[in-house]
C-alpha cells in the first residue's frame, strides 16, 4: 500500500493503541527550555518519578535571556530565577546536551537542535513550545506540547496522541527573485487561514519546496503551527542528508550509512493519499506583509489594506475593523505607505545564517531610514553569530545602523528587555503578530528578512525586488 510520510512516521512510533484510537507514541528527542519546563520538573519530583531517558533531552535557556550586556547577567530577577531553575533541574536530572545562558552554542531551541544534528530524520521530536513544528523540515514528526505533556514525556518517554488527518501543501515552479520560504509560509496561511490546518499534519511538497535549502524548509515548517497544524514536514532528500553530515550529534561511520539508507525511505510513496490537498504556484507568490493581528491577515507588498466595508460576513468584518483599529491603519491604504518605527530580524523563524545573508544583501552599502528608531539583528545561536561574523555580516548590519546582538528569542515575544513601546510599529521576521506580542500595545508586521531589511532602508514597507 502506498503510504504518505505521516503514516510512516506514525506507524514507526506507536507503542500501544487504545480501542478509541488514542495511541502512545514513543518520543526520540525532547527539547527543553526554561519557560515551559519548571512546573514539569516539579511535578515529576512531587510524584517521586524519575525521568525515563535523559539522553533524549537537549536543553537551552533562550526566552528570558538578554541579548546585550551579558557581563551583567540577567538583570530581571524573575527571569533570572526561571533560568536558574532550569540550570538546577538539568544539573540534577542530566541531559544529552545543555547549552546554558552564555554558552558558546546557546541559542533559540529550534535553531540549536538542527544545527547540532540533534534533530534527525524519522524522529519524533517534542518541546514545550508550539514552534517545534520547525523540526519537521527533517522529515520528523515534531510536535509542540504543553507543560503537562512535557512531564508526561519525561516520565514515560511517550506522548498520548490521536492520528491527525493529512494535508498536502504543494508548491510547484520557481519562486521569483526576492521571494523566500517566509513568503511561501505567509501565502499558505493567507490561503487556508490560521485554523485551516487544525487537526491536520501538513506535508509540504512540490518542486518549489524541493528547491528550498534546509533553512528555508525550517522557516516554512516553523509557520505550520500558525496555519493551525500541530506539525508540518518535508520529505527527506539529498538536501537533508547533506545538511546533516558531520553535525555533532549526527551518526558516523557504518551507522551513518545505515541511517541514510533508512532516511531515504522517508517520503510519501507514489500514489499516497491525503485527506486534503492545497496547491500554490511558486511564480504567483509575491513578498508578503501582514497588516493585522493574526498571521492570516496578510497581503502582498503590492496590495492595499483591506476595507471592512467590502466584507459581507459580519464576524469577519468586525475582526478586520478591530485589527485595523489596533494596528492604527486605514482601509485601502497601500501597504508600501505604512511607516515603521523598529525592525527585528531574528526568532526561530528567520535567524539562521541564510536569513542574515538575505538581509545583509539588501543592507550592504545602505543606511536605515531616519524615522527608524531601532533596528535589531539577533542571530539564532552563538554558532550562527560566529559564522556571520566570519563572513563580515555583522559589519554590514552595524554600518547600516543595526544593533548586532547576542542570540535568543528577543523581541519575538519580548520576555526580555527587547520590546516595542505601546503604539510602535515593527517590521519583524518572527511568526506572530498577535496583539501585545512584542510588548503591550505593540504593532507587528510579519515579513521575510529581505523585506525587513527593505523596510529598514526605506522607513516604510517597500518591495525588496526593486532593491536587488
Amino acid at each position: 500500500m502506498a503510504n504518505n510520510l505521516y503514516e510512516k512516521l506514525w506507524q514507526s512510533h506507536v507503542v500501544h493503541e487504545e480501542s478509541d484510537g488514542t495511541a502512545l507514541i514513543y518520543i526520540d528527542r525532547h527539547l527543553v527550555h526554561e519557560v515551559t519546563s519548571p512546573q514539569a520538573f516539579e511535578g515529576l519530583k512531587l510524584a517521586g518519578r524519575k525521568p525515563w531517558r535523559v539522553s533524549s533531552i537537549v536543553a537551552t535557556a533562550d526566552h528570558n535571556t538578554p541579548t546585550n550586556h551579558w557581563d551583567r547577567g540577567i538583570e530581571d530577577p524573575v527571569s533570572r530565577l526561571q533560568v536558574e531553575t532550569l540550570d538546577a533541574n538539568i544539573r540534577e536530572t542530566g541531559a544529552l546536551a545543555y547549552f546554558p545562558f552564555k554558552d558558546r552554542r546557546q541559542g533559540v531551541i529550534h535553531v540549536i537542535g538542527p544545527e547540532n544534528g540533534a534533530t534527525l530524520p524519522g524522529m519524533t521530536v517534542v518541546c514545550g513550545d508550539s514552534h517545534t513544528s520547525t523540526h519537521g523540515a527533517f522529515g520528523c514528526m515534531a510536535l509542540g506540547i504543553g507543560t503537562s505533556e512535557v512531564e508526561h514525556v519525561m516520565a514515560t518517554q511517550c506522548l498520548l496522541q490521536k492520528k491527525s488527518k493529512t494535508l498536502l501543501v504543494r508548491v510547484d515552479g520557481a519562486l521569483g527573485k526576492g521571494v523566500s520560504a517566509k513568503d511561501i509560509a505567509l501565502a499558505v496561511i493567507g490561503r487556508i487561514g490560521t485554523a485551516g490546518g487544525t487537526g491536520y499534519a501538513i506535508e509540504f511538497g512540490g518542486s518549489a519546496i524541493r528547491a528550498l535549502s534546509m533553512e528555508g524548509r525550517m522557516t516554512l515548517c516553523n509557520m505550520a503551527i500558525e496555519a493551525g497544524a500541530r506539525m508540518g514536514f518535508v520529505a527527506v532528500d539529498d538536501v537533508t542528508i547533506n545538511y546533516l553530515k558531520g553535525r555533532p550529534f549526527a551518526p558516523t561511520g557504518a551507522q551513518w550509512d545505515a541511517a541514510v539508507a533508512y532516511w531515504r525511505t522517508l517520503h510519501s510513496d507514489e500514489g499516497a493519499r491525503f485527506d486534503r490537498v492545497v496547491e500554490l504556484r511558486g511564480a504567483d507568490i509575491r513578498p508578503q506583509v501582514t497588516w493585522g493581528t493574526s498571521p492570516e491577515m496578510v497581503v502582498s507588498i503590492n496590495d492595499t489594506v483591506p476595507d471592512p466595508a467590502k466584507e459581507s460576513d459580519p464576524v469577519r468584518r468586525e475582526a478586520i475593523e478591530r485589527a485595523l483599529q489596533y494596528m492604527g491603519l486605514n482601509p485601502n491604504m497601500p501597504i508600501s505607505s505604512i511607516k515603521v518605527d523598529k525592525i527585528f530580524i531574528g526568532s526561530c523563524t528567520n535567524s539562521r545564517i541564510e536569513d542574515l545573508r538575505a538581509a545583509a544583501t539588501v543592507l550592504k552599502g545602505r543606511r536605515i531610514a531616519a524615522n527608524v528608531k531601532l533596528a535589531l539583528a539577533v542571530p539564532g545561536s552563538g554558532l550562527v553569530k560566529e559564522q556571520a561574523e566570519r563572513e563580515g555580516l555583522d559589519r554590514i548590519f552595524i554600518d547600516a545602523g543595526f544593533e548586532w546582538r547576542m542570540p535568543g528569542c528577543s523581541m519575538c515575544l519580548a520576555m526580555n528587555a527587547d520590546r516595542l513601546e505601546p503604539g510602535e510599529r515593527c517590521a519583524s521576521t518572527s511568526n506572530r503578530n498577535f496583539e501585545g506580542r512584542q510588548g503591550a500595545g505593540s504593532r507587528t508586521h510579519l515579513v521575510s528578512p529581505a523585506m525587513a531589511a527593505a523596510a529598514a532602508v526605506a522607513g516604510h514597507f517597500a518591495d525588496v525586488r526593486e532593491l536587488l
Partner: protein
Amino acid sequence: MEKFNRLEGLVAPLDRVNVDTDAIIPKQFLKSIKRSGFGPNLFDEWRYMDVGQPGQDCSARPKNPNFVLNQERYRGASILLSRKNFGCGSSREHAPWALLDYGFRVILAESFADIFFSNCFKNGVLPIVLPANEIEALFQLVNVTPGFKLTVDLSAQTVVCPDGHTIPFAVDPFRKECLINGWDDIGLTLRHADKIGEYEERRRAEQPWLFA
C-alpha cells in the same frame, strides 16, 4: 487533576475569533515557575488599563469597563463562550491554568487550536466544540438574558439551556474518562511500562543512532 462531571454555571461571552494564548495570559506572567496564581492576570491587556507586571497586586489596578469580564453581570462566570479558533498561538499551559484559576471550567467555541485543546483536558477544563449556529444562538441569548446559565453534563455529553433546549457535543472517550475520574494520565501510561521498554529495546537494536 480536579474531576469534572456536571456543572451549572453563569456564562460570559467573549465575542471574538482567534482568541490567542498571548491574549489569554501575556508573556510577562510566564516567568513564574508555579502552576497557580494566574487568574488575576487572565486577559490582562484587555482587562486592565495599565500594563501588568508579575507579582503585582491587581486589585488596585484601573480596569477597562468595556471588557466583558469586568461587567458586574458576569461576575462568578464559570463557562466562557467564544468563537472560532480559540486558544491559537503558543503551547503555554499557563493559558488553561489562568482560565481555571479565574474560575472557568468550560469553554464553548466553534473550534479550538489543537495544543490548547489538549492542555485543557490535562487541567480539568472542558473545551466543547459546538456548531456555528448554536454558538451564534448562545451569544444572542447571553446578551439579552441577565444571569444566563447553562448546564454542562459531561457524562451525557450535553449542554442544556434554561428552556430545556439540549445541544449534544462530541468528546474523545479516553479524555472523557480521565476528566470524569480526575485521572493523572502519567499513571495510566505507566501501566504500559513494559511495552514501552520493549519498544525501546527493539528500536535501540534497529536504529542505534537514535540512542547515541
